[in-house]
């Protein structure tokens, strides 16, 4: 009864108009993913660039729009689902990973994406985030990190730097920030990546990789809030910084960066990643990145190369390993149960146990 129970939901209704329509077989374009809703971000907001990248990549995935659900919390970033011509939930503050877990475990046939902010995802929503990652629910989680609370007009967030002066910290913040990649790895995440709103090529590529990953994918996207935290990522986006400070992680390749790849990352005996001049140590001594290492220690060490986006900062995929996917496990148990015990029979269920007959 599992199948009969679940399947109809999808089929009944899809039959009517034929799954193919706007479906996998029909090739979709960028525009197909643009909703009719008026976009309400501030002019110049980094969210625009991210949306463009997403809407550019979606058609490539060959997933029909109706099979896609975008879930978010509350925040400027969390308005995202309204702008996607897919199914979507603009949830409540911090709860997107939980709501999305419901969608993904109820309906493994869907492609479920989460958009959250540094406040939504790491402040009020931190617990749901780490548990979704731990369970390896099949969610693609995009965290727009602008290191500020945008929608509430500029208070510091869990990723704001110490000393930051904001509306709620006129004398400077006293809180040591989270390193989102570190906390995700500490939470057993099977896929962890970082990219930048202005990355025309890198961002889409990371999205593709996340989509391809089985299980939960966590992507930290540095996003400029030009109203309340303008220039937070200038070290990575500014002219010189751009080449000097972006450390692109590439699987199987030694980690080098700098205008002429003159800099590199080396692993010390005590398992710490340090930045070196390639010339000094020689290319062969450089750390070769391995996304697929089962042990997350390497990825974690890499996440500590930069505590904040103020100097050389690794971008790309820190970790991408296979783990059982939560929703699939549930499906299996359902299938096994109905195979072993036979599909659920209500009459039988009620009639078993401490029963007797009165005539």
């Amino acid at each position, binding site marked *: 009864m599992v199948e009969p129970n679940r399947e109809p*939901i999808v089929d009944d209704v899809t039959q009517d108009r034929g799954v193919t329509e706007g479906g996998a077989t029909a090739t979709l374009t960028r525009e197909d993913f643009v909703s009719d809703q008026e976009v309400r971000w501030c002019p110049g907001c980094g969210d625009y660039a991210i949306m463009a990248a997403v809407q550019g990549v979606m058609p490539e995935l060959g997933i029909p729009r109706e099979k896609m659900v975008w879930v978010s919390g509350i925040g400027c970033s969390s308005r995202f689902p309204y702008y996607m011509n897919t199914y979507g939930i603009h949830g409540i503050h911090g709860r997107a990973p939980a709501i999305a877990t*419901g*969608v993904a475990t109820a309906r493994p046939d869907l492609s479920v994406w989460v958009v959250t902010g540094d406040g939504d995802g790491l402040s009020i929503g931190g617990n749901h985030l780490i548990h979704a990652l731990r369970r390896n629910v099949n969610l693609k989680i995009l965290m727009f990190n602008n290191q500020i609370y945008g929608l509430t007009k500029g208070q510091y967030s869990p990723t704001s730097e110490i000393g930051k002066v904001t509306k709620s910290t006129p004398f400077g913040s006293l809180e040591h920030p989270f390193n989102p990649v570190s906390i995700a790895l500490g939470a057993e995440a099977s896929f962890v990546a970082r990219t930048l709103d202005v990355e025309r090529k890198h961002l889409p590529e990371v999205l593709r990789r996340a989509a391809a990953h089985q299980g939960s994918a966590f992507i930290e996207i540095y996003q400029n809030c030009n109203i309340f935290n303008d220039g937070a990522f200038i070290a990575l986006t500014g002219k010189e910084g751009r080449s000097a400070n972006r450390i692109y992680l590439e699987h199987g390749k030694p980690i080098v960066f700098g205008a002429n790849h003159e800099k590199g990352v080396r692993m010390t005996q005590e398992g710490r990643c340090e930045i070196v001049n390639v010339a000094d140590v020689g290319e062969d001594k450089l750390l070769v990145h391995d996304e697929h290492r089962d042990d997350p220690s390497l990825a974690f060490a890499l996440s500590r190369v930069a505590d904040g986006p103020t100097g050389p900062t690794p971008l790309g995929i820190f970790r991408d390993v296979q783990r059982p996917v939560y929703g699939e496990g549930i499906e299996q148990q359902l299938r*096994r149960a109905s195979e072993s015990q036979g599909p659920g029979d209500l009459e039988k269920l009620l009639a078993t146990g401490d029963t007797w007959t009165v005539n």
Partner: protein
Amino acid sequence: MSQQAPPQEDATGRKELDRVVIRFAGDSGDGMQLTGDRFTSASAIFGNDLATFPDYPAEIRAPAGTLAGVSAFQVHFADFDILTPGDQPNVLVAMNPAALKAHLKDLLPGGLLIVNSDAFDERNLEKVGYSANPLTDGSLAGYQFFEIPMTKLTVEAVKGSGVNKKEAERSKNMLALGVICWMYGRPLEPTVAWLEKKFSKKPNIADANIAALKAGHAFGETAELSAYSVKPAVLAPGNYKRITGNQALAYGLIAASVQSKLPLFLGSYPITPASDILHELSRHKNFGVRTVQAEDEIAAAGMALGASFSGHIGVTTTSGPGLDLKSETIGLALSMELPMVIVDIQRGGPSTGLPTKTEQSDLLHAMYGRHGEAPLPIVASYSPSSCFWAAIEATRIALKFMTPVILLSDGYLANGAEPWRIPAIEKLPDLTVKFASQPNVGDDFWPYLRDDDTLARPWAIPGTPGLQHRLGGLEKADGTGNISYDADNHQLMTDLRQAKIKAIEEDIAPLEFDADDGATVLILGWGSTYGAIGAAVRRIRARGKKIARAHLRHLNPFPKNTEEVLRRFDKIVVPEMNMGQLSKLVRSEFLIPTININQVKGLPFRAGDLENRVLEIIDG
């Protein structure tokens, strides 16, 4: 009461009684819950009507021998249909001094008292502050009193089953059960069979328990303890099953899933006394039931909401503290107008309160416990087996009107057991829903284009081509569902959300009432006071007084005829296990005065107490 009437003897020479109330009391470690449960099962199969009331501490196993550690199970069985587990026991089984100290005050004068004398040593007596040994200081003169060296007898009996001393002594509850089974002529077979099944992997444990059980039975016979019989009750013909409220509730949810052809999704976080629903539902995966133990109640509700959005019956189960945490998510479901069932098994509050005790004090919280104007339907079960109905009814309303629904039960119903006449599947309501499958405005799909009658919005689920839409908690324009800050639209949506809930009164059964003609006093109840009120009404009538009673199963909206029913009577008496929450709703809704009978003790009403209070009102 049977104790008064000169008892007959049956063929086997047993004194016939019409009803007996036994309370088993011992240490948390003594397995009293299991003992009571087994005796109940045997009595059920024997054909008595019955009702049970487990009463145990919040701690798992407070230190042996302490008052805090006492765990009790009361069973009421009779040869006629009964309504409560009984006010006071006429039989008390006390496994140690703490149990005696804690429960003797409830035993009826002249009642039967059976104690495990082995447990009455210095240390144990001291632990609970007995200066003298009650077994010997004559303080138990007022009862028929038997002391049995249960521990010794048990250790004796289980020799050879190859269990160690500790395990051997653990079987003493079975010895006690054996004694009681003999006294009330209960067959041992069901219990033996059950023990063999339960301990199939540990045969020597099974043997030990069976040996102890039989030894107890034999002891009763040889010691010539007085023997009684309670005839089977004349219940309506049919198949019966002994069921607890939580079990019935779980079955009801599964039934709703089957009847609606929608998969059931439970997002839950363990909490006493609701956890057993999660446990029960997670056992029925072959029904396609998905259960997720979430990281907390907020996540549990969020997951249920996500599942509802995706076309499942999203359910979340909890108790008071969890309901607090779910409020915000319930508000979102209400704003998204998604079908969702929130089950609250009420317990003693406020705060952590009395986790294992019962109370009815979440009604106003269920009604108003969300910010903003946020009305939703409330359904309440009123007996263990009615939880089955309540689960189906709550789901029916949720699906038909596209709204979250709160189902209120409580700890007393959750853990209490009673015989349930298994319903015929054909008789269950058809809950089939029709998902939206086509655009409803030209080529567009408007998620808030409402049904004229129910005011429900269409339910379009992911996977349906062309109906992509986005919902959230910001105010929505009626029809399109787009974000709207328009002043008049907000008024309209607020009115519509209220009207939709109000409209449900057209869809639910009218309030039934049972009145003697000429009765001027109506007892109005809701929830688990059903049995106690019923028993009180019987007693009042037995005294030749006129009385009326009605019991609300829908708390929001009220059945359409509620005011009309209330206005038929001069006095409306509202007994509640809270400080008067239903009464507040009735007063503000109808401006009708109420006379409140409130008890907030973590325990159900005693029929006797209710009887007296109501008699005063009738006469006074």
